[in-house]
């Protein structure tokens, strides 16, 4: 069981190292299969851990395996340890399983790329980083995994390093994440100072409310940055510059879900700081609305899905923030299924249209690629949360939990979630109708080429098929009014602090289903059947196209002053004081040397005179002294 966890953790790392070391000795295809099989092995390890946990009673399902003492200073000690408990196994299964499918899909998608080996090494490293994050047995190791996830995402977003936009996006993601890393590190410092430990158990300790609030805020900062929630969300849409499977990996299995995992894992401290938990829920609600609105006007197929990710993570934050941890994790799982499915289907579309991502040029693909259409439809229905697809089961229970939290805040969250459902239906099916319905556009007729029946096509199609099936059946695991195995499974790690009543469940289900269908209907009326003209409200459109001016605001608030300050320091401080001082020092030394060098006439007589003078002076000294 513990060995399964270690295998799960290390096999992607081994693959990453092997691909790196192997270099050109490995064929490109072999690198891809190596990375994929390492994920399969990791998944097998995760399953082994899962089965191992099942053999224990529910109260006895936590095992920490320490390889060695990693850091030891004074009374503080941290081991290089992995934790095997229901939560980490849950995440391991998602990360290794969905991650493995995405890596497999990459074999087809990246076929023919110049640097496939590098790509697969990065992918394996990414999966390893995420597994390290979810398996780490203490917070310091979690922070290491956290940083490595940031590094891997940086490498993969900037994978096409010849594109300046990709490099800029990679830098943006890294910097935004670094902000979260920093706040998290500060929280950990505070924990060390107050609790002298970074084991997960210390979080349940008795802290003053200030300390609890600060620690929770620091952790929330990390979660917000990693999960692309307002106000640190601007990196996520830009991260679409990476290859499509990378987007799928970032959005579905790894990275953005890390924030939700972190909150659930450290829920003890959030329960001591309810205000911060409310902030988390509020940020989630704000994000789900803002992202949903922005998604309405995006014209890049991947960006629409990216904003929908932000929106769905917003739901998870609402769930985690109000203390409905199992529901947040459950939504995380179903979201991993259908979001990976959507991204991979979008990848197939992009692939078939020779790397075109602009949906205005697409249309009518339903006739040309019916299977892809069905897969995308399944993913979209799951995303909107239509019965019986996966999203239906998980999203509604979060809304019910918000209702159960009660109070004005709870109902605001609930209303925001419902509004988000409507928006989800609208933007998702806008995308679906624009891309797949109607007559094939001129661009599509010219550029479309169907998949063949080779390895490439199979490695594209089979993972999509598996995820399509999962998106249909994956949600049936838990239907909160009647059965909830996920909640039972996670109960020992993260006991939910809200329990919705039956009427709240059913109300939420009915309303969200209704609103989702309304959204779909509106989308159909506008984009599918063209019965209604697209509403044009100039200022709203402008605001949405500028993504609520977040980037512009950050430019004005941080970038411009930083550039101004840097320029000022360069011209006012560095140039005169540092750069010139070196030159001046050299000049002065040379001038001084020139003066001294005049004494070096090169004439032996001068030197002899100097010696004689010295002798004379010394003789006088001796005579006087003696």
């Amino acid at each position: 069981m513990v060995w399964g966890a270690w295998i799960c953790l290390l096999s992607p790392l081994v693959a990453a190292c092997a691909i790196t070391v192997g270099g050109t000795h490995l064929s490109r295809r072999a690198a891809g299969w190596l990375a994929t099989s390492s994920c399969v092995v990791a998944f097998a390890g995760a399953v082994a851990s899962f089965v191992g946990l099942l053999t224990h009673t529910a109260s006895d399902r936590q095992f920490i395996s320490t390889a060695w003492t990693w850091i030891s200073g004074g009374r503080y000690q941290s081991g290089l340890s992995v934790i095997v408990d229901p939560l980490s196994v849950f995440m391991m299964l998602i990360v290794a399983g969905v991650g493995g499918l995405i890596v497999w899909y990459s074999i087809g998608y990246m076929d023919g790329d110049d640097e496939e080996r590098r790509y697969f090494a990065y992918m394996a490293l990414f999966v390893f980083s995420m597994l390290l994050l979810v398996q780490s047995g203490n917070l310091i190791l979690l922070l290491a995994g956290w940083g490595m996830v940031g590094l891997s995402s940086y490498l993969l977003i900037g994978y096409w390093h010849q594109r300046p936009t990709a490099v800029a996006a990679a830098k943006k993601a890294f910097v935004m994440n670094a902000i979260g890393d920093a706040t998290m590190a500060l929280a950990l410092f505070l924990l060390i100072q107050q609790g002298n430990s970074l084991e997960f158990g210390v979080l349940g300790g008795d802290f003053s409310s200030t300390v609890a609030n600060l620690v929770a805020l620091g952790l929330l900062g990390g979660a917000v940055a990693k999960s692309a929630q307002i106000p640190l969300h601007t990196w996520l849409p830009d991260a679409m510059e990476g290859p499509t499977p990378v987007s799928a990996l970032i959005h579905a299995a790894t990275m953005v879900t890390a924030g939700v995992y972190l909150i659930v894992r450290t829920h003890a401290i959030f329960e001591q700081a309810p205000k911060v938990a409310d902030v988390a829920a509020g940020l989630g609600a704000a994000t789900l609305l803002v992202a949903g609105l922005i998604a309405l006007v995006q014209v890049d197929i991947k960006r629409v899905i990216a904003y929908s990710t932000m929106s769905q993570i917003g739901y998870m934050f609402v769930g985690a923030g109000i203390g409905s941890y199992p529901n947040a994790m459950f939504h995380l799982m179903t979201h991993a299924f259908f979001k990976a499915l959507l991204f991979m289907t979008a990848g197939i579309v992009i692939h078939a249209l020779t790397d075109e991502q602009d949906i205005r040029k697409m249309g009518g693909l339903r006739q040309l690629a019916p299977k892809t259409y069905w897969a995308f439809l399944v993913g979209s229905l799951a995303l909107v949360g239509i019965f019986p697809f996966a999203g239906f089961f998980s999203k509604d229970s979060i809304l019910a939990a918000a209702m159960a939290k009660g109070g004005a805040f709870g109902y605001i969250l609930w209303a925001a979630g419902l509004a988000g459902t409507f928006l989800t239906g609208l933007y998702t099916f806008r995308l679906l109708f624009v891309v797949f319905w109607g007559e094939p556009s001129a661009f599509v007729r010219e550029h479309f080429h169907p998949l063949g029946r080779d390895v490439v096509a199979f490695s594209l199609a089979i993972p999509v098929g598996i995820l399509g099936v999962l998106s249909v059946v994956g949600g049936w695991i838990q239907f909160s009014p009647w059965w909830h195995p996920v909640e039972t499974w996670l109960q020992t790690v993260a006991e939910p602090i809200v329990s919705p009543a039956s009427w709240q469940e059913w109300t939420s289900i009915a309303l969200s289903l209704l609103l989702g269908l309304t959204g779909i209907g509106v989308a159909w009326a506008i984009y599918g059947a063209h019965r209604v003209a697209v509403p044009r409200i100039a200022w709203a459109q402008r605001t949405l196209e500028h993504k609520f001016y977040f980037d512009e605001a950050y430019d004005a608030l941080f970038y411009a002053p930083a550039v101004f300050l840097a320029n000022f320091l360069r011209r006012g401080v560095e140039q005169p004081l540092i750069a010139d001082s070196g030159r001046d020092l050299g000049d002065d030394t040379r001038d001084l040397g020139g003066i001294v060098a005049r004494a070096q006439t090169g004439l032996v007589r001068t030197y002899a005179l100097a010696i004689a003078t010295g002798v004379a002076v010394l003789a006088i000294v001796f005579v006087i002294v003696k």
Partner: protein
Amino acid sequence: MLIASAGNVLVWMVWIVAAFACLGSGVAVVSFSSPFYSALGLIGNLGSLAVLYLLLSAEFVAAAQVLVYAGAVMVMFLFVIAYIGPRSESPWAGGPSWQAVGAVLASGAVFIEIVVVIGLKASGQLSHSEHVDGTFGTPAYIGRLFLTDHLLAFEITSIVLLVAAVGGVVLGAHSRRSAEEVPSL
């Protein structure tokens, strides 16, 4: 006593003549503008010094002075001067330079300091000289010293001479082959 005082007067007279010849020829060596005359002045200087050495009972050194110095070394000097031709140089041309002023001051200071030291600090010990026996300064005496007490100094001196001889050969041999191969100066 009378004989002794007569000898003393004689020695004084010889000393005065030799000393002044010595000083005069020394000044002459430094002040002649032609190296040829300077060299001749140095021969006079060496000869008068040899007389002074004799007065100090250093017979072997006096002989060596005349034979080696005034004989061999000065002959070499004169050969070289004759070889490259006597070139005149007027040391005081163009008025006193700072180098000339410095030279006067430094050498004057050295002279005055030595005299002051002799006169003020050491006159007590210098007024009485040891009595020596007749063998003092003879070749036999020097030879015994060289081969007993000062054997090491003797050997080192021979090595110095050997090195100098080799150096002279190297310098001369290079300059004999071609002007380009002279070690750069």
